[in-house]
């Protein structure tokens, strides 16, 4: 009797582990499906002309996505230029003034900002930039993405700087180096790998964002390098093409998805390499 009950408990134990393992493995199914379709359909559409030519009007076959690729890169570049200095400086301040009241308030603000839905940020960028200037622009899209990048950069910078031992800072100060130079020449360089990681993570996070660009960068079928004008980007193009009724556009959306995914994966791999290469052990 007791033997049987022990047996039963042991079987239940093994069964549970099996179920946990099984259900966990099922999570890979959607991932594999999405990747499989994108790679299979994407590679079929991708060619040199697809990557280097402009979209053709509806009805004409062919055409490419070069304007969306350059647009994505340019919008992210401008967003990074806005977000990186503010984010890094803010993160350093939070790490250096741990106990002040303003730090606590700012930390909460950063957490809240991270949770704000991207569509709301899109509306904000529309109201702040598009409406006053009177036209959709890549700049407004960059500002929306910069707002989304900020919390990630601030938090990773703060965490990294907090990990740097006080002795390193003290060594600098003991040599008579002014406090701000210690920050700039000792603390920030020592934490560089963490800061760079935060920046690349934030870029990977916003690179695929569509919602904030819907009413800011808006999309544009022509080649454009002027950030004060509407600009196309890969996520926008995927959205517009995927929901269009034309088969040709849908096929191209797979190709664009593939390119977008490759860009995001490349950023992620670069991040991992950066961590490995610049990691400073204490």
């Amino acid at each position, binding site marked *: 009797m007791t033997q049987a009950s022990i047996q039963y*408990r042991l079987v239940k*134990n093994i069964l*549970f*582990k099996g179920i*946990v*393992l099984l*259900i*966990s493995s099922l*999570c890979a199914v959607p*991932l594999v*499906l*999405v*990747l499989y*379709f*994108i790679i299979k359909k994407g590679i079929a559409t991708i060619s040199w002309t697809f990557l280097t030519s402009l979209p053709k009007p509806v009805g004409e076959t062919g055409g490419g996505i070069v304007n969306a690729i350059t647009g994505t890169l340019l919008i992210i570049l401008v967003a990074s230029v806005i977000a990186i*200095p*503010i984010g890094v*400086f*803010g993160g350093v*301040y*939070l790490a*250096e003034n741990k106990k002040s009241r*303003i730090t606590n*308030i700012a930390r*909460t*603000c950063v*957490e*809240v*900002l*991270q*949770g*704000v*839905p*991207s*569509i*709301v940020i899109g*509306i904000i960028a529309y*109201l*702040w930039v598009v409406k006053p200037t009177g036209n959709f622009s890549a700049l407004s899209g960059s500002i929306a993405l910069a*707002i989304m990048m900020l919390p990630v950069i601030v938090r990773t910078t703060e965490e990294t700087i907090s990990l740097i031992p006080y002795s390193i800072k003290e060594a600098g100060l003991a040599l008579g180096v*002014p*406090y*701000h130079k210690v920050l700039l020449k000792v603390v920030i360089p020592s934490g560089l790998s963490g800061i760079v990681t935060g920046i690349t993570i934030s870029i*990977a996070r916003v*690179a*695929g964002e*569509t*919602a904030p660009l*819907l*009413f800011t960068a808006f999309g544009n079928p022509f080649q454009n390098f002027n950030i004060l004008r509407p600009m196309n980007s890969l*996520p926008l193009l995927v*959205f517009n093409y*995927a*929901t269009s009724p034309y088969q040709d556009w849908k096929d191209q959306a*797979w190709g664009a*998805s593939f390119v*977008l*995914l490759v860009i*995001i994966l490349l950023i*992620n791999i670069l991040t991992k390499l950066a961590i490995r290469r610049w990691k400073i052990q204490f």
Partner: protein
Amino acid sequence: MSTKSTTVKKSSQTSEGAFLKVLAGAVYLIIALLICIFITLVWKSWPSLKQFGFHFITGTTWDPVSGEFGGFPFLMGTVITSILALIISFPFSMSIAIFLGEYNKTGWLSDIFKNVIELLAGIPSVIYGFAAIYFLVPIIQNFEINHNIIPYGVSTLTAAIVLAIMIIPYSASVAREVISLTPRDLKEASYSLGATRFETIRRIIIPYTRSGIAAGILLAFGRAIGETMAVTMVIGNTNTLPKDLTTLFFAPSNTMASVIANEFTEATSDIYLSSLIEIALLLFIVTLAFNLLGRFIIKRMGGNS
């Protein structure tokens, strides 16, 4: 010599002051940013707040032509899709959390799972939506044909399934962290009484981490509410309320985020625009509340995500 040293000191002091001001400025800017977002939303949705008042939340008619705006269908749509998504994703995120937090904290198998979760979180929303149009919508359509339901394909359920896949990483990562934080002596005490691993998980770890798991669910809920693109692409975008259980799952509907994405650029009148901004304001407040509550619980438990 002495004058030189004082000038050096002075200039370094002023540049030090300037540098520290820049640092503090960045922090104040972030705080101001959030406050300005809130003020802008309230200010721009004021006409709609004033005209419809509380009726905006309870009204069921959304008619831009006659200028009547009631957001109840979208509120319901958001709540239904998000709760459905949470229910669907719960077993998956819990399994991942238990596996990575308790069974295999390290090793090649957990590395694979960690990478899967990371990739799931990294795929852009718009690509999820696109893949769902291609793959999930026909499946749902077939099911509807076989069960004599109008075969829209796009529906509340379709959106909820896509959402569920997208929020697994968020609730799983929080739950994994709190599960791995369970004190060792508690688990050892349980083993020493002869409990199996399953019994330890069920009687010790899950009760101990209950509030942390709840916090993870709250954060995932906050995500699900604000998710826009994937939902917009597969929910069908109709402003109707479900009439019975079948239409609750299988009829097209709309969420707060998807109505903004669809109609914002078409909003012609001021009151229309202001109503859409009021929906954004509601989204902002609700996600803010869920986030703060979730993080408060995690902080109390001693986690740091």
